[in-house]
């Protein structure tokens, strides 16, 4: 429990990190550092995106699997680390 907290705190302390969200396999945001409405929005949209990305990778090569997904946009970058049951979403703006 404490290690989890420590890990998350470390990530949050990185330069430019705006927020962290942990979403479970059903799309429910379990832990978040952002406000509720943004969390819900991110969780819902990213859940679909990760499912699609994962199925794409596996369709191309069934032995393969998705390890990490980065979505870079003009204003920031959304990093998604998927796992069997959960995903960890970090939103960072690196140039600050």
């Amino acid at each position, binding site marked *: 429990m404490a290690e989890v907290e420590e*890990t998350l705190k470390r990530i949050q302390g*990185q330069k430019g*990190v705006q927020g962290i969200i942990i979403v479970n396999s059903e799309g429910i945001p*379990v832990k978040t550092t952002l406000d509720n409405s943004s969390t819900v929005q991110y969780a819902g949209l990213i859940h679909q995106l990760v499912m699609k990305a994962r199925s794409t990778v596996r369709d191309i090569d069934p032995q393969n699997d998705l390890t990490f997904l980065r979505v870079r946009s003009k204003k920031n970058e959304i*990093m998604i680390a998927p796992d069997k049951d*959960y995903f960890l979403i970090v939103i960072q703006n690196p*140039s600050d």
Partner: protein
Amino acid sequence: MEIVHVYTKDREEFGRQCLLWDRPTELLADILPDQNLASNFIQRNHRDQAVQAGRQVSEHQVNTERFESDSHGVNHVEGGWPKDINPLDMEQTIRFRKKAEKDESYLNSIQQLGSVTEYCSRQNNAVDIYQEPFDGWEEVEESPEPPSAKTINVFRDPNEVRRTVTGLSWHPDGGRKLAAAYSCLDFQKTSRDMSLDSYIWDVENPNRPELILKPASPLVCLDYNPKDPHTLVGGSYNGQIVYWDTRRGSQPVELSSVEHSHRDPVYKIIWLQSKTGTDAFSASTDGQVLWWDARRLSEPTERLVLDPTREGNLDRALGAISLEFEATMPTKFMVGTEQGLVVSCNRKAKTPTEKIVCTYDGHHGPVYALQRNPFFPKNFLTVGDWTARIWSEDIKESSIMCTKYQMSYLTDACWSPVRPSVFFTLKMDGMLEVWDILFKQSDPMLSLKVCDRALYSLRVQDNGRLVACGSQQGETTLLEICSELSTLQKNDKSLLATMFERETKREKILEARQREIRLKERSRSEQSREEEIGREDGEDDPDQLITRAESDFYSQVEAELKRRERREEEALREKDVCEEKEVNDEEEAGRNETSS
């Protein structure tokens, strides 16, 4: 011949057992081939014939009906909460969350994911991903591509009987709409079932006109009010002026009365700059230019008769075919006539005789288009017969620049509103030509065949890129000109100003010289007239003029012939000289050989 063998058997022998015996074969008949019959037949040549056994397939294209699609987003609100937990209940959700956090797999996976994410996050911080890699480099100049124009849309006359597009006008506010006037200008060729309508087209939708205008008589020209984009004024074939408001529908709001309108089709109508924004003036081949106030079309506010002798005599008046008005010079305007003259007039003159300021004798045929250069209002463009000419206001004798005589008649022209040296012309063989006088004066920059029939009217949109041209078959083609010809270059204005000045000066010098020569001749002829006694004073008889012209002509022809003979003689002499020289050279060469 028939070969018949009869076989008979007695009735009593039916049913008797057959008695078979061996007998040698007996030849019953032998027919040998008759060689004479062969002459009726010819042996055919062998022929190769291919036979294919393949599957028959065919290809079809189908254009489906328009499928309307709409994009919507779906907002995924909350995730898949288990059935027993109410997502709106804060307590339950918090409890659920807390339970999830205590899960074994949660702890493991988060630790793993955390380390991966931290690595990437650090990576982002190490390298600035939003840096501009090519900052500060100069912009590469694009290589000049050949000028081109693309057809974007074609608007076709939806009626059965096609009419010519005689007038076009762009919507003043952004140019999303185009108003086109349709009528048949051929003498007495209008059929009874020709529709009288004119249309307003939306540029995006070529299938159906946006608004149908229904006048009482077909419209020859129309114009959008630049101040109020909902109102239009049009001139019709029977001489009436019609006023529309597009908010009020297809029927005209007001019509001018027949007694006070023109007696011939109204060829051009333009809105004027005025405080009320409702003034317009129109011109027609009956020789009048009428001013109207759009609020009261029952009577024109002013009238001008285009009589070159300035007497206001309608019988002598010149028929007007085109009109020109520039908002920056609101008191002056110009009229192009059927006789080839361009008349410059001043609206604010006190007496009608002073209204007509001067005339420019330009073309051999009607002046179909007349427009001042939007950047240099002292110079204007006219088009008529087979040439396009550019004039300067100060030089009244002749144009300062003139294109070559083209292969077919020019019907319309206008300047580009964006580049001062570019203008467009239309020809009767369906070609659209774009000229750039700074680049080349003898040929157009771009010559496009827009359609097979003659093109009659042309309008450039205010941004300079879109050009609409209307044809005899009722098609209006919308073209986009390439960016080179529609963007202002740096030195355009100054170069063009110097060019116009140069040409104007040249014409002035030529005019001065002509005047000198004429003066000299006149003084000489006056002297000779004084010497001779018995010659009648006053105007020459037309016969005398003719004989004098003939004698002049013959003397010139003879002089020319003599000159040609002299030239030929010289050429022959030169050839003789050359031949002699050659002969001499050969002799010398021969002599040298013998000596060596």
